[in-house]
């Protein structure tokens, strides 16, 4: 570093935690986040999933310094180099970093996959991480609103192709599936992300034309530990809603027995079934390249919902997201906008629906990016049709991969 004492960027609050850590790591600027749930009487400080995310980032970087205060309400993070999976440093079994999630984690595994996938293109070596342990939820989560791994694989990873990162070099293996356990906590899934595509600079993105027309709908219905007929019931209900609009609907059915997880460390033989549930992930593909709309719905961990309702809700959610318009949905917009900001020094354009831009997450991302030294977004209306979409132009910072190799 050029300066002796780097200047900390200061943030408050627990919102956008993952996003700020990613931006900090990519831009190489240390952050100081305070007042993390400091007003909460029951759970002050960092939540289990946030601690876990810090550990994950520590595992794929070299030279990161993380300092959590005694109460957990303040974090100081000094980013290191993104090394990826290097044998001998972090990688325990073969060429893969094993990351275990704790049993009290209530976020889906995509909460960790999204930031990891943002760091991976800029890594020095390949990024291979296997998530295991009693906290891996591969399904969507009802309470915390994480998407399922199926949506991540079919609707977020393909978007990396637009940036010159071939999806064939990215592999997401779901070795064991699991829904959220009782109280929305814990699972028992195993997921492996192999990101073998490292780029110097993401390409400048121009997705500012019409979003095309929806040609087909694909999806995955999954159920773990419940009757396999739930899949068909969900698919049937979703089709009933969508058949009026598209005829080309294919939904795969995935049935797995629920994973057995050891409950007690002292009695390894004692195991119980965890992560029983079912859900549906639907992806609508448009005729324009790279335009995907994804919807996700899952049964709540306490049950009490019939599969027909889950299927129909997922279909309704998909219709609502399509009607919001734009080329990227709210699920993927933060990923796309971040990659655009990290791209080469050129202006990329992205067409977004009005209600996708008008979310406080998007506004917060814009502000955070500016704090981290990226230039402001340009925002303008689309004049040539009446959809009310907005074009956001993002200038890349050109940090690419080289900037971060200087530690």
């Amino acid at each position, binding site marked *: 570093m050029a300066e002796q004492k780097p200047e900390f960027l200061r943030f408050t*609050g*627990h*919102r*956008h*935690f*993952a*996003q700020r850590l990613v931006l900090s790591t990519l831009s190489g600027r240390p952050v100081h986040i305070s007042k993390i*749930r400091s*007003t*909460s009487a029951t759970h002050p400080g960092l939540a289990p999933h946030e601690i876990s995310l810090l550990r994950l980032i520590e595992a794929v970087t070299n030279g990161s310094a993380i300092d959590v205060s005694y109460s957990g309400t303040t974090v100081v993070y000094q980013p290191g180099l993104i090394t990826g999976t290097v044998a001998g440093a972090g990688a325990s079994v073969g060429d893969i970093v094993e990351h275990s999630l704790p049993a009290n984690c209530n976020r889906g595994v*995509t*909460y960790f996959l*999204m930031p990891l996938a943002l760091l991976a293109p800029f890594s020095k070596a390949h990024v291979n991480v296997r998530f295991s342990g009693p906290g891996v939820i591969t399904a*969507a989560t009802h309470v*915390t*609103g*994480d*998407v399922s791994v199926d949506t991540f694989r079919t609707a977020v990873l393909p978007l990396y192709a637009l940036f010159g990162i071939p999806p064939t070099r990215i592999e997401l293996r779901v070795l064991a599936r699991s829904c959220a356990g009782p109280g929305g906590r814990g699972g028992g899934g195993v997921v492996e992300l192999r990101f073998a595509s490292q780029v110097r600079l993401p390409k400048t993105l121009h997705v500012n034309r019409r*979003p095309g*027309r*929806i*040609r087909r709908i694909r999806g995955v219905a999954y159920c773990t530990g419940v009757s396999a007929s739930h899949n068909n019931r969900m698919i049937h209900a979703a089709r009933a*809603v969508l058949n*009026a*609009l*598209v*005829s080309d609907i294919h939904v795969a059915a995935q049935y797995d027995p629920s994973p057995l997880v050891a409950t007690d460390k002292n009695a390894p033989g004692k195991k119980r079934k965890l992560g029983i549930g079912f859900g549906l992930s639907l992806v609508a593909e448009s*005729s324009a390249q790279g335009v995907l709309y994804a919807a*996700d719905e899952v049964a709540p961990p306490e049950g009490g919902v019939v599969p027909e309702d889950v299927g*129909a*809700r997922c279909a*309704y*959610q998909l*219709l*609502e997201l*399509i*009607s919001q*318009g734009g080329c990227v949905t*709210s*699920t993927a917009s933060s990923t796309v906008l971040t990659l655009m900001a990290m791209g080469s020094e050129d202006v990329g354009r992205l067409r977004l629906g*009005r209600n996708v*831009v*008008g*979310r*406080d*997450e998007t*506004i*917060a991302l*814009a*502000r955070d990016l*500016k704090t981290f030294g990226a230039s*402001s*977004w*340009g*925002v*303008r*209306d689309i004049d040539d049709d009446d959809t*009310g979409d*907005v074009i956001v132009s993002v200038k890349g910072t050109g940090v690419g991969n080289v900037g971060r190799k200087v530690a």
Partner: protein
Amino acid sequence: AKMLHGKRQPYRAVDLARFMYDNSLSAKEALQKWRGEDEEEIEEDIEKEEDDTFFRRVGKEGDDDASEDRYIPKFDYEALARKWSTKDAIEALRTKFSTANLVDE
């Protein structure tokens, strides 16, 4: 004419760019302003807050604290089901699908 000019047109991109980087507004307030949702109401709220005691403010912050980062937006599914079970809504959306009748356009 006065009616037209009195109230600013909501959802203008120019306004958004201005509100987005105005750090004196929270993200939520910026959006409310952009949508043109009753600004008078917000101002009223501020006055109330000043009158009120310490406790209410804690409650408000707690509200913000309870919200977590979500990837799936929250929906009111009953409202959605009502909206998308009407034929008009489906027909209005049809232009976004390849089954749309292109001749009529």
